[in-house]
């Protein structure tokens, strides 16, 4: 299997992806900001987790994913 081509581990949110600091996925843990190169991410298969709750739900009981956790209007949002 071909491994995804990712850049060096970067710090800080990926350009254009201002998101909550508590959003996490396995690809984020492994590749840092290169997580967008992960084939699972590109195929919309990523399981995101909220680091605060340890669940796929945020503290406000809303879903934890890249779409929902970029919404600065959520009560639990803390910008990365």
């Amino acid at each position: 299997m071909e491994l995804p081509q990712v850049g060096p581990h970067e710090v800080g949110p990926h350009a254009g992806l201002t998101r909550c600091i508590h959003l996490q996925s396995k690809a984020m843990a492994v590749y840092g900001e290169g997580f967008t190169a992960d084939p699972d991410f590109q195929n919309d298969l990523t399981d995101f987790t909220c680091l605060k709750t340890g669940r796929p739900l945020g503290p406000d009981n809303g879903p934890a994913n890249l779409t929902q956790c970029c919404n600065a209007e959520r009560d639990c949002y803390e910008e990365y």
Partner: protein
Amino acid sequence: MKNFTYYQPTSLSGVLKVLDEAAGKAEILAGGTDLLDRMKEYISQPEKVVSLVGFSGPFKEISSIAGHPPTVTIGAGVKLVNIAESELLRPYPALTSAAAQIAGPQIRNMGTLGGSLCQRNRCWYFRDEHVQCLLKGGRRCFAHDGENQYHAIFTQGHPCVIVHPSTLAPPLMVLGATCDIRSHKAQRQIPIEQLFQAPVKDGQREHTLAPNELLVSVTIAPKIPPGATLRNASYEVKQKETSDWPIVQASVAYYTEAGGQVAKGVRIALGHVAPTPLLSPAAAKVLEGQEVNEKTASAAAEAAVEGARPLSQNAYKVQQLKVAVRRAILLASGAKPYWEG
């Protein structure tokens, strides 16, 4: 997979006509996340497969979420991801959080409300094509004496000890949902509790729909007085946080009157612990008229497990159910969240 005839009607009446004529030999295909697995593993071998894809788009009643809280109607064809992210359903975190935690993104993007409520059970004996269990024409339920760590703990009077697999059923039960069911010649509405049954033999399903009936939509209409605040939440215990089934689940809904903290109209439902989703009147009675706190939540949790008769390998679920009920109650009350210790 056994060969079958595929139908893709473009109207609701077309679907109902095929179901009527098929006389129990057809399966309905919506998201397909359960049915296709069953067909590939020879658990289900329908002669006809009736897809809802052809009409679910234009037929808004089955594919949309509509209404104004507290009354909201969710089409049976609405995807789980759309339930999880719906603005209209925001006042019902018991439901949206349960939908957001089902399986993984792939399943949530394909699976539907109707599929969640009408799916077949996950018992490994039932799902093994080589095993003739009670639900497949056999003479016994192998889980009674076999591997039963994920099976029912409310087992009294049940020859088959599956757990009902729907994660959306308990929250819908506490929110007072009703189902709109249609057949070629009739239409009926039933409380969602009456949608489920404990199957005991071949040919019986985990739901009470006749073979020619289709679940079209589910309407949430919690009974709360004007000015009162609805509080609701679900809590699940899982082995993994994603791509897994809950081991136990609890949903709770109640209302508090303006300025008050006393729980009224309490409904508590338990999931994944019995062959049907269970309402727990005993737990609700303990909480009714009480201020919600650690003590009352724990008392309700103790009441919820009354009557549990676990099997040889699943007594651990009794303790987990207590935890789930207590945390669901406290979550609904807005008390200190469980993840803060």
